[in-house]
Each structure stands twice: as structure tokens, then as C-alpha cells.
């Protein structure tokens, strides 16, 4: 293998599994260390730079970082990254003075954003500090988009949402409520320099089965949740069936618990391993007494005398991979209400089809995955409206990227010219066997989130269920982080091949051996490197024997013992900081530098 190019920021970035997996590349280890030091405000600001909504995401994020977390590979359970994010948000102090300054002198460019959800708000967040004038068109009378209408208040309290959304609106964004855009043609004609579409995927999928339109007790999940959020619905029947088993279904069944539902069943077509809902959302729903019924395919709504009495399902038997099914029999489940939570679609009836904005055969706009530009120059899409339903953190990242494109577009720079990511590497050595980070491995287990007890939480619709980590839980959980951003950096010319690093490594990730092809090399290491997703860090030939030092990045716990036992400082522990490019890279990078 060729020696690893560690000057490429992406190499060490990938070692930081959580940051690599996060669509917005939040610097997780850095903010966890800040929390450990009690610097909650600083931790919040590190978060805010990349993910914009730390308090919201600390409660609702889909957490792609956690399955990626190295700790999960080392002792089965990842660090509770998301919960720690909430700790930072809950305990932060005053941050107004830390936010980017908004210039009084505008740059003369006006941007229209459609929908006041996370994608549009991120665009505004990135463009306002550079002097843009941003106008957001929102169909409802409150901002937040899906974060407000589809995430129940018992998961995301309204004041948390409002606070973070207002941080952006208070930058001087012009927001027009109750203003659905009815015609893209008209909007384009009204003189904006660029248009960003962040209108989400607002149409819940329907289920056309016999009886569907003979009753008003069948609800579309996301519409139903929105009606609850805006106070139009206050009750539901005692027996509720939820069709579908994604995260929206979880929000629907748990909302039903609070509106008077007693016997609530989530009906799933497929077996449990194939559910779309996050495991923790399933757990939370089951804790509230919701029954999840697998292998049932809806067949028919049963209406008697114009009244919904229940549904008929086919009971299925699946093959091993749950690809093919066989119908066993049919069963009837009684119900007073049925909620359909089987997915969402994009809908753009308001975009005329002769505007050179192309759509594919599924009705999705044709959008460049890097620039987020549509086929019409100056019109950008992001969030769920670009590529269909994803989640908040993806919408934020789309917003960041679209803001870069818009800034380029308005300066007549090709949108394909993306500012490059940079990096900082800084030695953490403070003295002999002394580091500026806490390098000891703490075997403590993942802390369990405490919940409000069942009777109390059902009393009102907006009692937040999760209590957040207390001080002790936080103190334990932060110590589980392995500091993957403190990189093991190797200097081949210094190595005398004494084997000290190899001998001391607790997880057998180092080897000195002759070079070879990757797969061959992987099989010859101190412990075979079977996880092909994780890189091998390969050194140039070593001076004494021309062999190479190989590090399997997979299980390294970043304890720094290799560097401590190295007599020549060939190994060093260096903090890696990814310099992420935003619309105005200079102002974004310098807007907050932890001391």
C-alpha cells in the first residue's frame, strides 16, 4: 500500500466516526470535552456553528453519529451524543454576544426562501451575516416547519423550538406568515436574486382501500399531527390503529396516548428488524403501552352504518430476508380511529412546469447533489423538498450547501466552485506522559435517560417526556467519549522500531511488518483488520529495516499510550480540527474560536 496522505483533511476526518457520519459534520468530541469542563455555552456554540439547532436536535435528531460511534465497536453501546448535545443546550448561558454580527450595510442581494423549516432557516442563518436580505414565505402562522407541525410537544417543547428559530429570525429576516407561495412564476418575477425552496415533503401518503372515503375517522398522520400542534384536535377514540411503523407513526401513537386513546396498536407489514422507526422511538412508544403488531398488511376499512368499526388485515409470513410474503389468513381489528403514517411525498403544484425547473418521473425536482441548484440557474432546493423525506440534520446541511451556492451565484462565481475544507492539527503534549486531554479509558456504561412517569406525562399534551441527563449522568457519559479527534500522528523517520507502541497498545491496532497489498496486509496485522470501512494508516518505509508501521483505525481508543511509550516521539497525539467551509468561510470560521 502507498503511505497514507495525512495532509488530506478527509483522512483524519474519517477517523472521527461521529463527525464523519453527521451530515453537518458537527465536531462532537470537541463539544463533549467542553461539556466535561462545564463550558456549556462554548459547547453549545461549537454545535451551533455546524448544526444550527443544538437544543432542537439534542431532542429530536435522527443521530446518524451514534451508530457510527467508535465506542459502540469497543463496548457495544455508543456514547449518548444526542443527549449530551441537549445538556449543552439546557445549561448554556447567554449567547447573544457570540452570534455572528449582522452588518447594517446590506450587500444589495435579496433572497427568497419558501417554507420556514430547518433548511430555509439555515440558509438565512448563513447568509444574513454576509449582508443578504432574506425573505421567508411560510404558509402557516408560526415558523419552524416540520419541527413545529410534526414533532409533538412532548418530545420538543415549543419554547425550545421558538428560542432557536428566533435566534435566526432576529438576525433581521423578513418572514411572511400565512403566505403560501401559489405561483413560482410570480415569485421569480418579483425580483429576488435567488430563490431557495425549503418547503418540505408536505403530503402524507394515502391508503386507497375499500371504505377509505366513507368515514371521517381515518387521518393522514402528518396532517393530524399538525392539527394537534396548532390546537385544532383535542381528542381521539379509545381504540386507535396506526398504519406504518416509521418515526411519524411513533409520534402518532404516542400523541394518541395523550388524547384519550386507550388501546393503541401500530400495525406493521414487516418483521421488527425492518422497521423504519429509530430503535429508541420504538422503545419510548412501547414504554407508553403502545402495542406493535408485526406481519399485518391492511386489506380493508370496515364501515358499518357509516361508522368506522375497524380494519381487516392479512396476516403474513415472510421469508428469511423479509422480501417475499405469503398470506396466512385475515383478521379483524376493531378501531374507532385509524391514522395513516406510511410515508410522505413531495408536492409542487405551485411550480409551473414551463419554468425550466425540471422534475423527474416521481415528481421530485432535478437537483444537483452538491450545489443544490435546480435545472434553472438561481433556483435552489434543500431539505425534504430536494430529495424526499430525510431528517432535520440533513435539511440543515442542505441549507449550508445551498447558502454557499447562493453566495457564489450572487457573485457570478460558478456554483460548482466549492470552498475546500481545511484542517488544523495541534500536538496535545504537555509534558512527559501528560496530555491536554483526558486520555484514560472509563469503562462506565451508557447512561439511561430518565423519563417523566407515565401518569404524569399523559396529563397534558406538552409535558416533555425526557428529563435530560442530570449532573452525575452527564459526568459519566462525557467520560465515555474516546476523543477520536485526538489523532495518533506518526513520523516514520523518527522510528527506531523498538516495538514499544505495539507492545503497549491495549487493542492490538499497531503492527510493524513488510508492505503488501491492502487485503494481504489486513490479514497480517497484530489483530486482523476485518472492518473494511475503517482505514489502515500506513507509514512510509521505516529507516532501520524498510518495513512499515501500520495502524488499524478500527478499534483505537485514543489513549495515547503509543505516544507515551515512544522513546523518539515518532507517535504524537494531535488534535484534529476540521475547518468546514460555509457561505462566508472566513466569517464563519472565525465567528467562534474556543479559547
Amino acid at each position: 500500500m502507498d503511505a497514507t496522505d495525512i495532509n488530506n483533511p478527509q483522512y483524519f476526518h474519517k477517523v472521527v466516526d461521529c463527525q464523519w457520519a453527521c451530515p453537518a459534520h458537527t465536531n462532537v468530541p470537541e463539544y463533549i470535552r467542553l461539556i466535561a469542563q462545564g463550558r456549556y455555552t462554548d459547547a453549545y456554540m461549537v454545535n451551533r456553528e455546524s448544526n444550527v439547532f443544538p437544543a432542537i436536535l439534542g431532542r429530536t435528531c435522527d443521530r446518524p453519529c451514534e451508530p457510527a460511534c467508535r465506542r459502540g465497536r469497543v463496548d457495544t453501546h455508543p456514547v449518548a451524543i444526542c443527549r449530551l448535545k441537549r445538556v449543552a443546550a439546557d445549561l448554556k448561558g447567554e449567547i447573544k454576544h457570540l452570534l455572528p454580527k449582522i452588518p447594517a450595510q446590506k450587500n444589495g442581494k435579496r433572497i427568497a426562501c419558501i417554507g420556514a423549516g430547518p433548511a430555509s432557516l439555515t440558509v438565512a442563518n448563513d447568509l444574513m451575516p454576509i449582508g443578504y436580505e432574506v425573505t421567508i414565505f411560510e404558509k402557516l402562522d408560526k415558523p419552524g416547519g416540520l419541527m413545529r407541525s410534526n414533532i409533538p410537544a412532548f418530545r420538543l417543547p415549543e419554547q425550545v423550538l421558538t428560542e432557536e428559530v428566533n435566534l435566526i429570525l432576529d438576525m433581521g429576516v423578513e418572514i411572511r406568515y400565512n403566505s403560501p407561495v401559489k405561483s413560482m412564476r410570480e415569485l421569480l418575477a418579483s425580483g429576488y436574486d435567488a430563490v431557495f425552496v425549503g418547503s418540505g415533503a408536505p403530503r402524507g401518503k394515502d391508503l386507497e382501500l375499500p371504505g377509505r372515503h366513507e368515514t371521517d375517522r381515518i387521518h393522514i398522520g402528518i396532517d393530524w399531527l399538525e392539527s394537534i400542534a396548532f390546537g385544532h384536535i383535542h381528542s381521539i377514540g379509545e381504540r386507535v390503529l396506526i398504519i406504518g411503523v416509521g418515526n411519524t407513526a411513533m409520534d402518532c401513537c404516542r400523541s394518541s396516548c395523550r388524547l384519550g386513546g386507550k388501546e393503541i396498536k401500530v400495525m406493521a407489514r414487516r418483521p421488527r428488524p425492518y422497521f423504519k422507526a429509530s430503535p429508541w422511538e420504538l422503545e419510548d412508544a412501547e414504554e407508553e403501552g403502545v402495542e406493535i403488531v408485526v406481519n399485518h398488511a391492511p386489506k380493508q376499512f370496515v364501515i358499518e352504518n357509516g361508522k368506522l368499526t375497524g380494519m381487516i388485515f392479512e396476516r403474513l409470513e415472510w421469508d428469511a430476508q423479509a422480501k417475499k410474503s405469503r398470506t396466512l389468513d385475515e383478521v379483524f381489528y376493531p378501531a374507532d380511529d385509524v391514522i395513516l403514517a406510511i410515508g410522505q411525498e413531495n408536492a409542487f403544484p405551485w411550480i409551473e412546469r414551463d419554468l425550466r425547473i425540471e422534475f423527474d418521473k416521481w415528481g421530485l425536482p432535478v437537483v444537483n447533489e452538491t450545489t443544490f441548484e435546480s435545472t434553472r440557474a438561481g433556483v435552489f432546493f434543500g431539505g425534504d423538498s430536494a430529495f424526499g423525506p430525510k431528517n432535520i440534520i440533513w435539511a440543515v446541511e442542505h441549507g449550508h450547501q445551498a447558502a454557499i451556492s447562493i453566495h457564489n451565484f450572487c457573485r457570478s462565481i460558478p456554483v460548482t466552485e466549492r470552498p475546500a475544507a481545511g484542517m488544523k492539527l495541534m500536538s496535545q503534549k504537555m509534558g512527559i506522559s501528560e496530555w491536554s486531554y483526558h486520555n484514560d479509558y472509563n469503562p462506565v456504561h451508557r447512561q439511561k435517560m430518565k423519563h417523566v412517569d407515565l401518569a404524569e406525562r399523559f396529563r397534558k399534551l406538552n409535558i416533555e417526556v425526557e428529563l435530560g441527563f442530570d449532573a452525575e449522568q452527564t459526568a459519566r457519559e462525557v467520560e465515555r467519549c474516546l476523543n477520536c479527534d485526538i489523532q495518533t500522528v506518526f513520523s516514520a523517520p523518527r522510528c527506531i522500531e523498538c516495538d514499544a507502541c505495539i507492545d503497549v497498545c491495549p487493542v492490538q491496532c499497531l503492527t510493524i511488518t513488510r508492505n503488501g497489498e491492502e487485503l494481504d496486509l489486513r490479514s497480517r496485522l497484530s489483530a486482523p483488520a476485518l472492518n473494511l470501512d475503517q482505514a489502515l494508516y500506513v507509514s512510509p518505509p521505516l529507516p532501520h529495516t524498510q518495513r512499515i508501521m501500520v495502524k488499524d483505525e478500527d478499534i483505537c481508543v485514543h489513549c495515547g499510550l503509543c505516544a507515551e511509550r515512544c522513546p523518539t516521539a515518532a507517535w504524537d497525539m494531535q488534535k484534529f480540527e476540521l475547518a468546514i467551509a460555509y457561505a462566508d468561510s472566513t466569517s464563519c470560521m472565525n465567528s467562534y474560536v474556543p479559547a
Partner: protein
Amino acid sequence: MPSIAKPLARHPALKQNELGLTIRDYEGSMSTLCAGCGHDSITAAIVRALWEISMQPHMLAKMSGIGCSSKTPAYFVNGAHGFNSAHGRMPAITTGAAAANRELTYIGVSGDGDSLSIGIGHMCHAIRRNVRMVYIIENNGVYGLTKGQFSASADVGSKSKRGEPNQFAPIDPVMLALSIGATFVARSFSGDKEQLVPILKAAFRHRGMALIDVISPCVTFNDHTGSTKSYLYTRKHAVSATDADLVPPASEIVANISAQDVTAVTLHDGSILRFRSVPEGYDPTDRVKVTSYLQQRQQKGEIITGLLFVNEHVPDMHEMNNTSDTPLARMPYEKLCPGSAALEQLQEEFR
């Protein structure tokens, strides 16, 4: 000294030996030696060898004297017995321990100061008695613990860190051992575990004393240009004369043990020591030939490594003295000490 104990985190794919233990179960406390010390690599090789032969930790006794080397038994097999004796007395204490309890496996870790200066007499007599033990000399040519004076194994002309050359002729533990009847003699290098681990495994199965001289660079006082026991010098001058590996009794049926170019020595317990690639005319069981080969190559400035000599036909201390099969440690007190009447009777026989 490291800032932390070795993290408890383990590689999830760690293998288990016959006892269900992983290699990490054979570790000891964190080393307090200098970073990069050859002794730590030898410790790692011992850990690996003991894990591979599935040694029961409670059946091992770790013996040592004084010096950097003699600290190392603390760094492997926490669950073993141990005795840290006075300077140079490790061989004598081990002889006594072995006499009292022949069931334990003994590993003595010593250095060139401990064994070739203050303790040389004890070492020689333990060799003569063929005490069943693994005797490791961690040989770095200097007294590291007292700031790097030449030891008795320093070569003539080898320079100290200050630049002064050594004038006294070295004691070569391998030649010394061969000359006084040692039955298992090897030399290796701390930086070559591929050679050292199989030698250690064979040593644990040898009938009597297995003496292993391991070049182990002192990274603080003797790893400079001008030293003949540095990492670089040893790498440049070491010549692996023999390539030996151990075939335990259970694997005898393995078909690929070809007789061609292989000198096989059957050990006491039925395992086979296979010498692949020995020099032409070299016979690891012929003391005279081995001695003369080593002398010739030494003249050329080569450091000959490998398992150099083995003789399984010499009885060990217990066999020579026809001692009881039951270890003294497990004998009832009345039998060990039959009382003054029995003593009287015994003395009567000599009057």
C-alpha cells in the same frame, strides 16, 4: 511512567487459548521502565509465549534479582507467584524454590549486571544443577539503573554515552553456559519477537534449565552510535543461525513435518523442536560443533541468534538427586520433619 493504566478496552476479536484466556489475561502492571526499553518487548514476548502455551497463571513462579530487568516480572502475568530476591541471588532462590515445589513452572528474569557480575557464581551453579527453569538474561551491556556504566557483557571498544570505549573483555553468557554443561542455550533480540516467542515456548518445555540471552537495547544509556548493543547495531549485525519452532505433542500428526532439511529434537514431554534452515554442518545437539561455530562467527563480528544448543538427555536437578515426586511443599509436616528421634537415628548412622 505512563499516565494511565492500560485501558480495559479489548479488541473484540481477541482469541482465547485452551484455558479460555485471552492474551490480555497474561498482562501485568504497567511498565515503569523508560519508554522504548527492550525489556518491555521481551515482556510482551513472554506474555505471548505463555498465552500460546496456555500456561495456568497460578502454576507460574516469576523470579528475579535486582536491576531494570528484574523489575519486569511485575509487568506480566498478574496472577502468578513471584519472588524478587537480593542482587544476583535469583538463581539460588529459584533452585531452592524448585527444590521445594517441583510442580510450579519457573521463569527467572535477570540482567547482565545481575547474572554476569554479582550473581555469576549462582548462575553457573544453577546451570550445572540443570534446575528446571526458563532463565532469561535481558542483556543491554550497561547498568541502566545506576546511570549507564559498562556491564560485564559490554564489548571491547563499545562506547559509553559520553564516548569512552570499554577496555575489558566481555563475558558471553552463551559461551559460558555451553562451557559448563548448559542443556538449552539460545540468543535472541528484543526487537525480533518472531524468533523470540518460539524459543520461549520451547524453553518452557525443556527438561532442565533453558538459558536465553536476549539483546535488549537500553534506550536511555546504550542506544547511540558507538554502542554495540543498540537497536541499529543489533539489527545490522544479528544473524539468525537457526530457525526453530515447537510442535506440541498434540499436533504430531500434522503431515507437513518433512524430514528434509529439518533437524528434529524430541523434547521431554513429547513435543518436537524443529530446526529449519540451520547452517550446513550445524548440529544443535553437538556441543563442540556449536561452540566452535559460534567462536568462528563471533570473530567476524556477527551476533549469532536463534536456539543454538539443546540436549534433552541430561537429567534435571530432581532427577539427579532422586527427589520425591511429591513436592515438599505438599508433603505432610510429620513426613517433612519426622522429629528428634528420627534425627537421632540418622546421626547414629554416621557415628
